[in-house]
Every structure is written in C-alpha cells, then in structure tokens.
C-alpha cells in the first residue's frame, strides 16, 4: 500500500495554518503517531507500521469550549478533561480501507460467505473501484440492508467491517437508550456523556469506522428520537460538522463514517430518512448456501475456542440438516451449547439438541 502520513501542515489550508506555532505542529505530529500506533496495534498485522498510514482531520485542532459556558466546577473540569484528551489524541485520524485490488479481493470474499447479499456486495465493489480512481478510501457508505429476520443482515455488516479492517460498532436502535447512544446526552444532565459517533472519532483511531444501525425500523421514541441525529449524519455536508449533544461547541467531521443499517421492514422508515440510504434486499439463503453458512459458523466457533484439533472440522450432512430446522442464530447457539457439553463430557462427539428449551425458545429476531 503506497500510503503516507498526511501531516497537519499538508491538510490544513494556509489560512488555518497561520498562527500555528512550530511546537503546535510538532505536537500534532506526535498525537498522530499515537493514533497510528494504536490503530496498527488494534489491527495486528493488517496495517502498515505507525507512521505510514493515511490520515485526515476530524476536528478543528484550535477548538476550545466557549468561555463562560461552563459556570459550575464540574463542567469546567469536564471541559478540561476533554481538552486534555483532544490534545493527546490530536485532530488526525487514520483513513482505513484504502481502495486497492487487495481490498477488492477481501470484499469479494463476501460472495462466498454471504451469497444472498450479492446486490450489496456489487455496490460496495463499485464504490471501491471509484475510490481507487481517486486514490481514496471507502468512506461514507450508507447502506440499508432489509429482509426478513434471520437472513444475516447484521452479519453481512459485521463481516464487511472485518474484511475492511475497520473498527465497527453495532448500535441497536430498538433500545431505549439509542438516541443518547448515537449522538450523546443533553448537556444539562449532570452525567452527560458523548455518544458513539463522537467517541469513535475522538477516542478511536479511524475517521471512517463502520457503524451498524441495527433494526432501524424498530426505533423507540420513548427517550428521544434516535433517528434525529441520523438525518444530519447521513448527509455528507451536515455530517462534516456533526455536533454531539453533550459537546455542542465541538463539531466533528463524521462525513467519512460508513453506515450500514438493517431493517426487516424498510416501509416503516420515514421517506426522508430512507432516501439517504442505498437499499438492498438480503434474501433468504438457499439450502446449499445455508449449509455453507452453518459450516462456516462451526469453524468460527472451533477457531474462537481453539478447538480445531479437538473436534472434526466438518459437520456431517445429518448435523447440518438438523440445524437447518432453525435460524442461523439458533444454529450458533446449538453448536456452542453442543461444544460446551462435549468438553464437559470429555467427548469428541457433538450432540445437537434442537428441542432444548433453554436453547430454542425465542422467535427469530435477527441473525447472530
């Protein structure tokens, strides 16, 4: 990957650089190195070593809380802590998933693992090619994957994040705290906290992480409207100056964040919100594809628990047929329970119990 650190002096327009001292520039470089090093460590061997990753600015480094805004001591201390964090982390974040033939190859793996999402995969590969022509990275994806429960929508999104080597975060929009989880809680609460967007951009390492907005059609407005922030976040011009409710004085550039939303029923979304996404239907996998998915799931479990040498690496046709009786989520639970039981019994044989009440009692409500 022929990428270089994009230093502050390269990014910042001359007007912004005016008045920036040599010490400030050096501090920005050191902060960038901290972020790059963390990104490289988080990613293991996938990324090049710190100092060679492309970076972009996610906030104005000259930003300060407005004077007089923090009247009480707690707020002042909080602002000081935030400022210390901003100085330590600097304004530059790594741009992951730089478009390249290698990245396209990685994305193409989805065709095998998630053949029922080929429409979305085609689109992502198209975006990759376009980004490659500009020497850019995969940024600002806004996908809406819809389809019936248990077809693997969330798994596509999470696998995509893994293949792109981007940090990913799942926000369940059906939860009561979804509004605050995404865009922070209002400043007047004593325990006000910034939301996931701000945290990923400031405390995280990447400018283009991947957020999975799970069950976007099942939002609860009981504690605020979680979709309110999305109107701003899904429009690149407004996302570039996104303000967390907890830190309204500090706009961050969220325009490069990738969003993949999942929904069972896209009709339930407001048209204005729906129009901000590119929609793809994730169809139910064929029986053959389902068998492949179950086998992959099994291998993942063996790998996760370091059991590759302990159990057979392939499920029998009978076993996969048993597992076809439930959803993929059920299959994962059953396989996990069977592995646990086999270990307890000091046995190498898996007994798949479809009817165990503790395991298979709930309705299918998603994928994994």
């Amino acid at each position, binding site marked *: 990957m022929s990428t270089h*650190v994009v230093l502050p002096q390269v990014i910042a327009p001359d007007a912004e650089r005016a008045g920036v*001292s*040599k*010490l400030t*520039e*050096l*501090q920005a*470089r*050191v902060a960038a*190195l*901290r972020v790059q*090093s963390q990104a*490289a*460590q988080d990613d293991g061997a996938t990324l090049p*070593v*710190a*100092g*060679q990753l492309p970076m972009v600015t996610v906030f104005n480094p000259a930003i300060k809380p407005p004077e007089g805004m923090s009247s009480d001591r707690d707020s002042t201390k909080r602002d000081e802590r935030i*400022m*210390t964090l901003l*100085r*330590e982390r600097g304004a530059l974040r790594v741009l992951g998933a730089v478009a390249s033939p290698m990245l396209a190859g990685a994305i193409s793996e989805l065709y095998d693992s998630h053949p029922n999402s080929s429409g979305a995969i085609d689109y992502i590969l198209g975006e990759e090619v376009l980004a490659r022509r500009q020497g850019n990275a995969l940024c600002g994806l806004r996908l809406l994957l819809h389809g019936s429960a248990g077809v693997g929508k969330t798994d596509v999104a999470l696998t995509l994040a893994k293949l792109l080597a981007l940090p990913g975060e799942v926000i369940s929009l059906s939860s009561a705290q979804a509004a605050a989880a995404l865009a922070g809680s209002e400043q007047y609460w004593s325990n006000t906290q910034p939301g996931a967007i701000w945290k990923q951009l400031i405390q995280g390492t990447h400018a283009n992480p991947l957020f999975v907005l799970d069950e976007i059609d099942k939002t609860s407005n009981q504690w605020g409207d979680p979709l309110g922030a999305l109107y701003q976040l899904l429009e690149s011009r407004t996302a570039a100056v996104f303000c967390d409710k907890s830190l309204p004085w500090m706009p961050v550039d969220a325009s490069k964040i990738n969003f993949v939303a999942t929904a069972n029923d896209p009709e339930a979304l407001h048209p204005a919100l729906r129009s901000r996404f590119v929609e793809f239907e994730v169809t139910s996998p064929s029986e053959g594809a389902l068998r492949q998915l179950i086998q992959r799931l099994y291998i993942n479990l063996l790998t996760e628990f370091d059991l590759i040498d302990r159990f057979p690496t392939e499920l029998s046709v009978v076993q996969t047929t048993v597992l076809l009786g439930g959803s993929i989520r059920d299959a994962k639970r059953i396989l996990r329970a069977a592995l646990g039981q086999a270990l307890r019994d000091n046995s190498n044989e898996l007994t798949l119990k479809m009817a165990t009440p503790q395991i298979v009692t709930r309705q299918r409500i998603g994928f994994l």
Partner: protein
Amino acid sequence: MSQKPALLQHHYHDWHLLRERFMEKLAEQSQQLRLIESALLQEDQSEIITKVGELDLELLRYACYSMESRITEAARLDCAHLIADSVLDVSGGEVSGKRWENWMSAAACWPQLAQEQWNYALDKASDVIIERLESAGVSIDANSVKEIGREVADLELRDVLPPETYSRIFTEETREEDVSE
C-alpha cells in the same frame, strides 16, 4: 575549547594514577584557599604570596573545567527533557511552561547556558521524545523518527517558553545577541 578535551584526558590520566590521594589533594587545596582568604583578610602580603605559590594550579584548573563541563552537560540534558516535556505536554502548555519557568529561575547561569547549548539540547531532545513515546507503547517507524528529529531541530527557545517568561528573562540585549549569532 578544542584543547579542553585533551587537557581533561591528560588530567584524568594523572588523577587516575593518583586516585588514592585525589580526594586528599582536593581537601588540601580547599584548605589552601581558606588560608589565602585568611591572609587576604589580614593583608599579609608575604603569606598571600607563599600560599598562592603553593596552590596546585593544574588541579584547580581541572576542577574548574570539570565543573564547567558538568554544568554545561546538565544544562543540555535539562533543556532536552524540558523540550520533550513541552512537545508531549497535553495540558495546553501550563505544566511544561511552569517547569521552564522554575528551571530558568533556579540559577542565574541557566538562561545563558540554555541559549548557548540549545542545539545540543535539541539533538538530545529528539532521543528523549522517541524514548518516552516508545516506553508509552507507541511504535514509530524510522521515517517518523527522522521527521520528529527534523522538526525538533527547528524549535527555538521562544517556541517552548511561555511568552511572558521569555520576555522577562531574555532582555532586548540578549535577544539581539541571540539573533546576531
């Protein structure tokens, strides 16, 4: 300046051979200086001449040189660490500024030495910064090490000192000398 290392080596060799008596000889010279002070107070010309004649000028010259080189080295090292403090400061300059202020005020010789030894201090400061970052778990590639070294080498005293401290300590005259150098 160029002769001093040779002188140091020469004396180091001598004092190394005489190391059993080195401390004793230093104590003797201190006593000799006290006797000269006493003779000066009493205005005893002949005693002054005698005692001055008995001084071990080689040893005293070596002691002065040692002190000068140690203080110079201390100034370089202190400045290097203070520069690193400034670069790695996340308090907005408050903490490192206070440290500079305290150091500069601790002895009259530091401001001048800081100016004179600045380039040496910058050279060492890059190493200190890299060491501190690496010990904090930051892995840095060779190119970034070079870039940091280049940018550190560009720093001036006025970049790291709080402006009011710089104005107070370095008079117009000193600053002009600084510029003319």
